[in-house]
């Protein structure tokens, strides 16, 4: 990363962060859906990663204070949230065999920048910048809309993963109760690009090999603009030979491919935009309504999807008992806090402007100096730092969720 401010995530810094800044109460509300502790919190697994990579699983707590106490005692580098079990995870050993099963958990998604390495030119590996964040931003918009409109879920919390990706937590009651089979079905519905070695292959999402399913048709119409701005203009993905060869590989018309290759080899400096236009004009040479033209048009849609459609880490979403890093943890390499992100304002989000733990503690010091405060531990210390808008965002999200649960409960009571 460009600005090489030394990152301090030493045990002392982390302990101060947990003591003074981590919003335990907000996390509790969000997981618990109600004010008084329910099984959604008390039967919930927390897993701690300690200094030196010791991993402690199956912890559970009665309330936010207990959680805070334990976190401050163990001082983990991070902690993860798992499912709600049929018994308290801390009593796992004494539970009757077969009576300790995961029952509920948020439906989660993980989108990671590394899956975009084949299609970005600005950075690679662990690095990330505002420019390539646009891929994540596009993915968020598509996933957010699809989940809401197709599956009808409303309580979506997007959380920056602290480095190069983003997590989505869905807390709707139905989503919490999904079985592994149902999760797998939903993820496969959403998946277009399979990770790993398959990622360069042509897509296979069309009905009868012909038209796109309606959900993807909607997505491709939206992504066409992003493709042109991001892939063609900003990233200029097809500028290099490697880049345009990857494009040619996805065109199922050998005649067109050889024509384009000759042209581009002769003039490699043609911009991605020009190359895309070249492909378009090749398609237009075929008569309207002809099979060849239809094939090329379909291939162009597939290419748009290939470069811009969300790349989901399916394994994370498929299993109810998967553990995922809690919001507001600190990424040990970057020191950045895993803050919630507003999907409506993804374009404005800059991962490099996310506060680091060091910066926040400094802000706290500055804020407490005048008046000579005793430096006592307040629950709301975060209010005096740039963490505030992010905690507010989570609180607002939880409040809506809690209100919904309250109304549903009341509805049930009335029906008696």
């Amino acid at each position, binding site marked *: 990363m460009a600005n090489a401010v030394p990152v301090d995530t030493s045990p002392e810094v982390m302990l101060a962060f947990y003591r003074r800044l981590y919003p335990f109460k907000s996390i509790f509300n969000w997981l618990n859906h109600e004010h008084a502790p329910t099984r959604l919190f008390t039967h919930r697994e927390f897993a701690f990663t300690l200094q030196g990579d010791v991993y402690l699983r199956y912890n559970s707590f009665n309330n936010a204070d207990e959680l805070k106490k334990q976190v401050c005692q163990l001082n983990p580098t991070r902690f993860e949230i798992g499912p709600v079990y049929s018994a308290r995870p801390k009593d796992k050993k004494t539970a009757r*065999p*077969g009576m300790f099963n995961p029952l509920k958990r948020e439906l989660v998604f993980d989108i990671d920048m590394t899956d975009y390495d084949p299609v970005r030119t600005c950075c690679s590996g662990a690095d990330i910048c505002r420019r390539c964040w646009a891929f994540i931003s596009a993915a968020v918009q598509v996933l957010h809309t699809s989940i809401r*409109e197709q*599956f009808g879920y409303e309580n979506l919390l997007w959380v920056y993963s602290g480095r190069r990706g983003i997590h989505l937590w869905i807390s709707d009651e139905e989503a919490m109760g999904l079985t592994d089979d149902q999760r797998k*079905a939903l993820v496969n*519905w959403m998946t277009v690009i399979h990770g790993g070695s398959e990622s360069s292959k042509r897509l296979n999402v069309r009905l009868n090999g012909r038209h796109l399913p309606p959900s993807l048709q909607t997505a491709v119409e939206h992504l066409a603009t992003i493709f042109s701005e991001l892939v063609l203009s900003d990233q200029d993905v097809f500028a290099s030979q490697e880049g345009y060869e990857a494009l040619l590989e996805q065109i199922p018309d050998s005649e067109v491919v050889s024509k384009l290759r000759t042209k581009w080899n002769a003039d490699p400096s043609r911009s991605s935009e020009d190359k895309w236009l070249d492909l378009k004009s090749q398609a237009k040479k075929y008569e309207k309504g002809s099979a060849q033209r239809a094939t090329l048009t379909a291939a162009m849609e597939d290419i748009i999807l290939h470069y811009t459609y969300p790349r989901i880490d399916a394994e994370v979403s498929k299993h109810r008992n998967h553990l995922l890093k809690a919001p507001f943890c600190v990424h040990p390499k970057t020191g950045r806090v895993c803050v919630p992100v507003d999907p409506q304002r993804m374009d404005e989000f800059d991962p490099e402007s996310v506060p680091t733990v060091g910066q926040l503690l400094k802000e706290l010091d500055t804020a407490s100096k005048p008046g000579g405060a005793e430096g006592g531990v307040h629950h709301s210390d975060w209010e005096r730092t740039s963490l505030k808008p992010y905690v507010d965002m989570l609180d607002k999200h939880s409040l809506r969720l809690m209100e919904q649960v309250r109304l549903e409960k009341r509805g049930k009571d009335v029906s008696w």
Partner: protein
Amino acid sequence: MFKGTERKPFHDDKDLVQVTNHGSLRYPHRLNFYDRPPLYDVTVEEFETCALDRLRILAEIESSAARNRTWEELKTVTNAQCSNYLPLHATSARTVERDSERRKDHLGHFVLRLAFCRSEDLRRRFIKAETTLFKIRYDADDNAEREMFLSSRDFDWMPVDSAEKSKYRKELLGSYQGARNESVREQAFEAEKYYKVKWTRVPDLVEKRKVFLKAGWAYVPAKEQSSIVFQEFEVHLAKALELTARSLPRLDEDTRLVPILDNLSQGFLAGVPSQWAGSGEAINSDDIKAEMVDDLAKKHFPICMRSMHDNLRRDHHLKHLGRLHYGLFLKVLGLSIEEAVVFWRKSFDRLTDDKFNKEYKYNIRHSYGLEGKRANYAAKSCQQLLTSSDHGCPYRYYSPENLQTALLSAYSSRGLTSADLSEIMSTVKATHYHVACTRVFEITHSSFGIKKGAGTGDDESVTHPNQYAAKSMELYKVQQNSAEAMVVE
């Protein structure tokens, strides 16, 4: 203990027809969602037979998955097994005792619920096999009878009216899978009826993008309706099994049933022994002499008995449980008591006559029912060997390395190559031990015309070491006879 949904009262003409036609039947439908437990008196024998017969079928279904049978093959095998052990005729088959068939189906299902509710793994496997059985029957059911069955139950699907269908015409047509020809597909779509259900009820259709999704509702075309039914069957059964599991401790007090249930749940591990169970009689009519055993072991024995034989030859000895298992196996193979004494005497050639006569002879005679209780002991089945870590089933108890070495050294002369091992080992890893053994039988008997998936012939899986050996010897004999016949001609 079991809570069932009440059947809807008869309300339309179709149901009236049903009443007039088949009103005398206690079970009006061939298909059953098993909502109500059997609330009648049953003898322990009936309890066990019904369950065992059903278990045979479920075990075969389960091994089909491990044996990569296609859906069509699976249907053929299952239907054949069903007509033997659990026939279930259409309502229109008036000459058949339909109620008693359906009662057996009903009872067997509930007994197996008790046996299989006791661990997460057993529940999962039982649900899968039962759902498959239901699908096979649903597929084969008469259309009109199936319609009647469906209307007897509230599946809670909402018909999509024509206004809504035309509102989402583009999306519905866009997700309608059909003929490659566009106009044929479109025509079929126009005629198609749609139902709305929560998407969670049709995850398989969602996964394959076969439905249109809107705000959590899946629009399911009538031709995919069966998905809803199957899913409902599965979910319903899963819930019922969990309830049963919770109420089972009370049942554990019934000491007559517990051993039966334990035995049944082992059935999935080993398959269900057919004619080999319980028989202490020799099954081979030809006399087998002590000196023939070496040759027979090489040609015809499954790996468990082959290993014991090889150990006996190597060590000139075999420990107690080994002697018992192997001795009974040889007895059923056809070794007479006299030959057995000769065989063991020669095998233990480092012992004095005195020691042999004192310590071993009695036990040999005992296992032939000539001493002590004079019981005619049966040879151990796969099911028993699978639970015996001492001289038990090598597929289960050997380390992967040892198993592979043992298989290659025993069978490479009979056609097994190291290329076959990965398939066998992955089956072993999935704990389908009898499937692995069956596969080894198929490979080592391919020169007798045994194809992959044919088992020991007639699609039977290996469930007993004596079955394995007898089938092998039978194949050998058939070939010998036909070879002789050719020479004679």
